[in-house]
């Protein structure tokens, strides 16, 4: 890969990172605290790329003046796939750039949630603390699963809860309200699912906020149990700013 092409690849990669970080798109992939680091590293790449481009333009002029061949005197093949001037593997860096600019992959949704056979991360089996006050009480989908599956729903009895998630169709009919939980980035996301009773069918990936009450069933104390909720109220909502829990 030639020096000027390397420079353009650097600028494209840096530009793609800046493009998703200025705005909220990056939250589909990574978490909020990464923002300053993404801005910094995107900026460094653009600067390195611009400087390399200036270098190669200058070198091109000098070569033109002296009628010497355009070559890279300081490099040699050191056994990791260099042609005249740069690592060939660098071409691959165009793939994430293309993915970001052309496909703009959305936040993980119903497909990923349905694929995950385990439901939520196994919670410690210690007794759950009482639900936060409020009627309805705000819970995350993962928290509801933890309380219902690993604590026999004891803390959910006689309470109304509210949670936000997206629709994942249940192959056996109806749908689950689901949400992906992210430890570090979307690649390690784990799905939480709750079977919704008494609700109209909705298309996959519709975001909803529901209020409802826990009803027994769905199994307890296993990784694959999917607890139930009886819906009292349901509204469609836009995708939250941070799609993950």
């Amino acid at each position, binding site marked *: 890969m030639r020096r000027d092409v390397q420079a353009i690849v650097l600028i494209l990669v840096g530009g793609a990172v800046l493009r998703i970080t200025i705005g909220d798109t990056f939250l589909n*992939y990574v978490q909020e605290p990464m923002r300053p680091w993404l801005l910094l590293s995107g900026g460094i790449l653009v600067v390195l790329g611009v400087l390399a481009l200036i270098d190669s333009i200058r070198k091109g002029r000098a070569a033109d003046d002296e009628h010497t061949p355009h070559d890279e005197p300081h490099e040699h093949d050191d056994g990791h796939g260099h042609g005249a001037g740069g690592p060939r593997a660098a071409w691959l860096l165009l793939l*994430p750039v293309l993915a970001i600019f052309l496909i703009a992959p959305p936040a993980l949704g119903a497909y990923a949630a349905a694929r995950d056979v385990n439901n939520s991360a196994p919670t410690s089996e210690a007794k759950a603390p009482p639900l936060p006050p409020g009627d309805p009480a705000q819970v995350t989908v993962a928290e509801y699963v933890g309380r219902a599956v690993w604590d026999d729903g004891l803390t959910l009895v006689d309470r109304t809860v509210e949670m936000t998630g997206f629709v994942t169709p249940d192959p056996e009919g109806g749908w689950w309200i689901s949400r992906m939980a992210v430890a570090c980035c979307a690649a390690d996301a784990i799905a939480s699912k709750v079977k919704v009773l008494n609700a109209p069918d909705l298309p996959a990936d519709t975001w909803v906020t529901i209020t409802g009450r826990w009803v027994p069933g769905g199994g307890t104390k296993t990784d694959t149990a999917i607890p139930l909720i009886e819906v009292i109220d349901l509204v469609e909502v836009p995708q939250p700013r941070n799609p993950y829990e």
Partner: protein
Amino acid sequence: MSASPTRESKGYRPGSLEILAIGLVVLIVGQRWLVGLFDDPALQTGATIFVSIVVQALPFLVLGVVLSGAIAAFVPASFWKKALPKNPALAVPVAGAAGAVLPGCECASVPVANGLMSRGVAPAAALAFLLSAPAINPIVLASTFVAFPGEPMMVVARFIASLATAVIMGWLWLRFGKAKWLRIGPRDHLVGSSSWHTFRLTATHDFLHAGGFLVIGGLFAAALNVVVPQEWLLAVADQPILSVLVLAGLAVLLSICSEADAFVAASLTEFSLTAKLAFLVVGPMVDLKLISLQAGTFSGKFATRFAPATFVLAVIFSLLVGWWLLT
């Protein structure tokens, strides 16, 4: 843009700049059609996982190449000779521990070790540094900490298992290594007209190289997450020894840069922490990219002995340390 002015005198041959330009035009014109191709939930999920691994790892990679470029440009090689004990058996652990403070991208570590040897550092010590610098430097440990929130012992385990492997390999070289396996050349890899220029050349080169392999790792992780049924992964992950060997082998194939590999490991949610540890210990020391680098820099005889021995030691220490700290 700089089309090379000397091109006409040599006769026209399409170069990488032309390929890039034509490719970008085709992609921009065909965007609507391309986006249609990806209008499939499985492909979109794969694309999301791919982009998230690359984006999450990128700042660590950039920080890593900036620091290793700075060390290549601003720390004179004579410093190393002065800093290391004269006795090679003592120099090995000191050089191994030096890896903990000096970030070096793994692709950079091979030429750096070569440079150390050519300036009179004992080969065993230079090899211990070659193994430990990419495995246990602060940026790698920080990225591991970020990738495994709630599992701080992962960082400790990675540090101990990697350092142990590096030091033992150094001592093994001292005992069994033969000088004729090493072809030590002058380190003229990326030397610019000034320190600042050397820094830029090194950082740019290291980033492009490591970034390419990061993309391969990200693609593979995305494919594992989307193409392979989760039941299969769970079946392998349930076998304690097999799962360790599978992830260790995967690390060799994927050749991900050590600043980025923790995020790929973390995405393998089905596997045990010990198996992920093996991925993290083996990856920075033995992978296809490093083997080809070592063969190119030192010799094929060197690479065919050094890489398998390192692999075996790395797996053993991952099992031991994983059993000790992660269960």
